[in-house]
């Protein structure tokens, strides 16, 4: 029972991690909570569903195209809604983010209507069973994709020139520009990657529950945000860890307390973190010496 719940928690959590990464990467570099991130996730899910259902595109290709599409939406969002406010107050940018979220959700409603769409799973419904654990092929694939994406991102951020520039800009944006980093470009790339990861999560949730709707981004968007705060917003490993912990906590709360406490668990965690460890679990250990 416990192992089963743990694995369920990790599956759910890996989705939260992917979403949390988008929040944390953007916050790390421009100190903005991109409240439209849940809608990007929803756009990604819709793009994947439309490609697969209406255009018969093979699933993995549709998956990549959905990530690319959402990446472009994220990049455009930054350009239109956030860049003009770069030098304004943080409140102005936050209001713009909330506005963008409402706009994107209504745009989806306008184009697709309010009804839910079916997103059939492309995988044969196989289930692997042992005494400790039952897991479906789909769940294994979701886990594998999520972890591959996170490993890929970690490699990119740690080892590539652009990745290092992203880290430098997150630590000190002006000094990064003195090194020759075009910070506007770096911000665009950050939105592109964060949005693509959100779309990956959206598509996977879409096939998992076999449904996509224009409002599907709301709850996972909030949960991803909670996960990012839990891990320490702005910290990439924190978002990964925070997502996993949140997923596990949620599943455990549902299993051992009551399934009605599932969402409450997430927000209780948010409140506790903000009260007792506002810097998050992976808080900043190293301060700049002056």
């Amino acid at each position, binding site marked *: 029972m416990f192992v089963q719940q743990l694995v369920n928690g990790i599956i759910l959590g890996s989705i939260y991690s992917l979403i949390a990464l988008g929040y944390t990467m953007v916050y790390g570099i421009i100190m903005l909570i991109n409240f439209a991130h849940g809608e990007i996730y929803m756009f990604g899910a819709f793009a994947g569903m439309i490609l697969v259902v209406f255009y018969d595109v093979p699933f993995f290709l549709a998956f990549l195209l959905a990530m690319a599409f959402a990446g472009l939406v994220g990049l455009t969002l930054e350009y239109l809604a956030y860049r003009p406010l770069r030098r304004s107050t943080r409140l102005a940018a936050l209001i713009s983010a909330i506005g963008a979220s409402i706009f994107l959700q209504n745009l989806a409603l306008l184009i697709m209507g309010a009804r839910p769409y079916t997103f059939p799973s492309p995988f044969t419904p196989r289930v692997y069973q042992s005494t400790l654990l039952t897991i479906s092929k789909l769940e294994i694939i979701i886990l594998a994709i999520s972890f591959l994406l996170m490993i890929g991102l970690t490699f990119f951020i740690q080892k590539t*020139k652009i990745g290092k520039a992203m880290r*430098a800009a997150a630590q000190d944006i002006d000094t990064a*520009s*003195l*090194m*020759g980093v075009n910070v506007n470009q770096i911000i665009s790339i950050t939105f592109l990657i964060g949005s693509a990861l959100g779309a990956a999560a959206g598509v996977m949730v879409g096939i998992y529950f076999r449904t996509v709707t224009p409002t599907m981004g709301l709850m996972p968007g909030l949960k991803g945000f909670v996960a990012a705060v839990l891990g320490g917003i702005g910290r990439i490993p924190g978002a990964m860890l925070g997502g996993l912990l949140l997923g596990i906590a949620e599943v455990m709360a549902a299993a051992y307390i009551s399934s009605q406490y599932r969402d409450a668990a997430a927000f209780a965690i948010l409140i506790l973190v903000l009260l007792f460890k506002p810097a998050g679990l992976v808080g900043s250990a190293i301060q*700049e*010496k002056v």
Partner: protein
Amino acid sequence: MLTVEGISTYYGNIQALKEINLKVEEGEIVTLIGSNGAGKTTTLLTISGLLKPARGRVTFCSRDITGVPPHNIVKMGISHVPEGRRIFPQMTLMENLEMGAFSRTDKREIKNDLEKVFHIFPQLKGREKQLAGTLSGGEQQMLAMGRALMSRPRLLLLDEPSMGLAPMIVKEIFQIIEEINSQGTTILLVEQNAQMALKTAQKGYVLETGRIVMQDNASSLLENDDVRKSYLGE
């Protein structure tokens, strides 16, 4: 090499620079001295493109660079060591140096320059994997200067390299500044330690509340009564 003509820079409504003129010739060390809030940092930020002047012009090697974004100014050959060092604390020492070479693609030459930086700053050697935020203040200053050298600048802007450092280290830093200059890099040095700065530089400018109030050979400024009274504590 560098000509600053009549620049006025504002922070919102506050005018921090009032028609500053200054000139740096190739091969020189020029110092800009002045008390707190005089506008020294603002001058350097305007030259390196982080601030845009409302009026005036900055010319570097006969090119007008006014309003050019900072990441392009580095590529033209101006490297800026900002006030307070501003190393990337959560990156390793090596990654900081790599960031200094961000605008370059000549891998082999970058490697050579790394060797040179470690030669100038032997204290940094062997600590390539250490997080920069854990270095001492003096080491961080050396790293910030080494990082700036990694872009192979023709002109190096230094903003208070001696700030907060022990006298021994200050002496060492000034020796290194002379060494860097003798290897062909022109230097514009902002300092509150006017004594050391004027001894090291050939030319000096004195800035007071956003205006240049004096300019002369560094040795003459060292002898000047007003300078001695106001900036050398005599």
